[in-house]
């Protein structure tokens, strides 16, 4: 099924006879496998409104992300949260869409400074499981009118509604960027360096440890600002740092963002969101190749197929998600972190009310 308008989408959901698999570009196929008729949003495409002077964009959910990024680049602007492209990691083709990105709350290295996708998302329209068309938020940066369903829908993987339109606040693309790269260091030393860097006033907006064990720290801004801050940061941290600028810096962060180091490696890939100071201990317990981002708050782990990583981690504050695994693994191991009973009850209650017949990606999130 491929609706050409929001009205058609609403009608298709309303009259659905059974489960539907909601799909944008199909490039972020994670979660428990869902059986059902495929509902593609690619027909809902196009930029509805772009006001560079107000730093805001309204776009239909099926619009290819590449089209959006090209339009913003023309005006020297961008989506602030640096969304990950999962194609290489998951070995998939297709065009990532705006709706898929929002449904995944996909956010990259700049998450530590400018927030996640959900933080830049200021409004949306969606069709709930009964076929009702709902709008929430709007196209202004500050809006507390009513409950914030925008946040609820971001990262809900199409289980509460099918997105039809999304609004974002944007940021200007800075004139320059610089990245400091260390020698290979242990996870503990990496977290120490990253925490120190993120605690300086130099506005570090990327802090990662690559698969090669080297720490990378990024600063963006006006040209003189970047060279001043880069030097000040090096002085504050001490030690030897390699300096990457412009394209070389951008390429490094693209690779970290897309976890390129694990793209061709065999095994399952897990994604952990943790308290940075607990990261070294968790990495030791995981005992596998890792990429660390968000100053240690995000850990990508490459593990043997079918291994339930959570069993080795024990109890920790945060969550682990199985991002890449065979269908059999995803059917056997909970993809999303199991929640405490009262929280799970709230999630179940929301699902029951937004999709009472259980037709939208049922079971995907468990």
């Amino acid at each position, binding site marked *: 099924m491929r609706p050409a308008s929001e009205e058609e989408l609403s009608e298709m959901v309303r009259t659905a006879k059974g489960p539907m698999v909601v799909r944008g570009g199909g490039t972020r196929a994670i979660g428990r496998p869902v059986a059902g008729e495929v509902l593609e949003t690619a027909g809902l495409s196009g930029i509805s409104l772009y006001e560079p002077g*107000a730093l805001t964009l309204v776009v239909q959910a099926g619009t290819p992300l590449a089209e959006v990024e090209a339009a913003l680049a023309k005006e020297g602007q961008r989506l602030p949260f640096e969304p990950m492209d999962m194609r290489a990691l998951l070995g998939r083709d297709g065009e990532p869409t705006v709706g898929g990105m929002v449904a995944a709350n996909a956010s990259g290295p700049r998450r530590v400074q400018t927030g996640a996708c959900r933080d830049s998302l200021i409004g949306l329209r969606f069709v709930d499981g009964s076929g009702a068309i709902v709008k929430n938020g709007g196209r202004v*940066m500050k809006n507390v*009118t009513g409950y914030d369903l925008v946040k609820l829908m971001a990262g809900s993987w199409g289980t509460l509604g099918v997105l039809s339109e999304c609004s974002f606040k944007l940021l200007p693309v800075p004139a320059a960027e610089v990245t400091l790269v260390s020698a290979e260091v242990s996870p503990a030393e990496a977290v120490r360096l990253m925490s120190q860097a993120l605690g300086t006033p130099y506005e570090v907006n990327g802090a990662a440890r690559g698969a090669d064990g080297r720490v990378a720290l990024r600063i963006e801004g006006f040209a003189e600002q970047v060279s001043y801050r880069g030097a000040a940061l090096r002085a504050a941290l001490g030690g030897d740092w390699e300096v990457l600028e412009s394209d070389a810096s951008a390429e490094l962060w693209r690779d970290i963002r897309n976890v390129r180091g694990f793209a061709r490696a065999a095994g399952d890939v897990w994604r952990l969101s943790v308290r940075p100071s607990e990261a070294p201990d968790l990495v030791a317990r995981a005992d596998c190749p890792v990429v660390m981002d968000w100053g240690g708050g995000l850990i990508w782990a490459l593990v043997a197929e079918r291994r339930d990583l959570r069993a080795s981690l024990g109890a920790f504050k945060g969550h682990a998600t199985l991002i890449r695994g065979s269908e059999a693994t995803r059917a056997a191991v909970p993809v999303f972190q199991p929640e405490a009973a009262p929280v799970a009850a709230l999630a179940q209650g929301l699902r029951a*009310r937004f999709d009472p017949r259980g037709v939208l990606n049922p079971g995907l999130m468990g």
Partner: protein
Amino acid sequence: MEMPAPNPAILAKRDRVLTQLAEILPAEALISDEAERRAYECDALTAYRCVPMAVVLPSTTEEVARILRICHDEKVPVVPRGSGTSLAGGALPTEDSIILGVARLRDVLEVDYADRIIRVQTGMTNLAVTGEVESDGFFYAPDPSSQLACAIAGNIAMNSGGAHCLKYGVTTNNLLGVTMVQMDGTVVELGGAHLDAAGYDLLGLICGSEGQLGVVTEATLRILPRPEGARPVLMGFDSSEVAGACVSDIIKAGVLPVAIEFMDRPCIRACEDFAKAGYPDCEALLIVEVEGSEAEIDEQLGLITQIARRHNPVELRESQSEDESKKIWLGRKSAFGAMGQINDYMCLDGTIPVSSLPFVLRRIGEMSKEFGLDVANVFHAGDGNMHPLILFDANKPGDLERCEAFGAEILKLCVEAGGCLTGEHGVGIEKRDLMAVQFAPEDLEAQMRVKDVFDPQWLLNPAKVFPLEVSAARRAA
């Protein structure tokens, strides 16, 4: 503004409920005396008042859970209250409700600079959070004008903003985790010192839900390293429209100041009399602030003043000292208080797309003449969050009603321009009956379903946010 009639069945069991509460609370945490209860009859929206049935001031999460369990079982409505600074009537009691104040929940539970977080009980004030970490070079970013008094609990309930959110975002962008007690006494932990949710973003849903989904007792907040320096520049213009156009040009140019504040002549005068901030005598004033090292500030202000010059400013002046900067901000932050000393006013909070600023300002000027009431404008221009203050005389019969009608028209104008009813103050009771201007029935239904999940009996903060006729069936059930 209408509130539902108190439920006689609940009023009748007041003694029974108070006896149960007295069993689980220390004496000083339960207020039943009428004179003392009266202190809680309103928040900062003082036009509406109602004395609650009782007031409880718990000091632990466990006490909050016990209180809510009793009220849940007895079906008594509960109105959560931070410091009572809501401008929207968010903490207005009903006669048959119990006020649950968080004023005694004031502990700092944890500060961690390596992870850049602070965990506090939510009765702590906004400014006290920054006070806790500033000597170590950190701060908590959201800075509502009421930050000296307002509690973190209220900030979370209303998703409070402030002058600096153009760069740092509002409460929801700086909130990492909460401990929340549901109406039935269940305690849930959402988020923590890590980023983003495991499943649905319930934390994002709680923030801004106006105390209708649960009582938040503890919060993990993101703290940030203080910038090396900051400096505001004052720009005076001879019309509001020109100032509005200048704001749009600054944003388009790729500079992102931390704050762009706007004031018009009536407001400039009142603030100048109050704070002696050295504001110029002009029709419209912008305060634009940038951060960084001295050289970085010079570079950014250079670009900004270059843009401003194209709009023929009548005054263009950079702050020369920390002391002067403080005065400039004191003037801005005391705008509401200063206006209040010379006039009764109603403060609006609609947000519009920045590109519509010149048009909306012109229309407000025209409407001011139609209604025969003056308007003073002070607002966060960078993000389009307007605060028109409609001046009226509370002693003059009919003036308040005329003012409310004018206010409603301005908010409708904001929605028509592509904006919203409230940018940071919340809906409360004040904008409750205008919700249908911005939302279709399906939109409100979706929001009310969330309330059904968290508080099936609709006991928390009753008669707020949703128009009474829209929520009638649910409240009666």
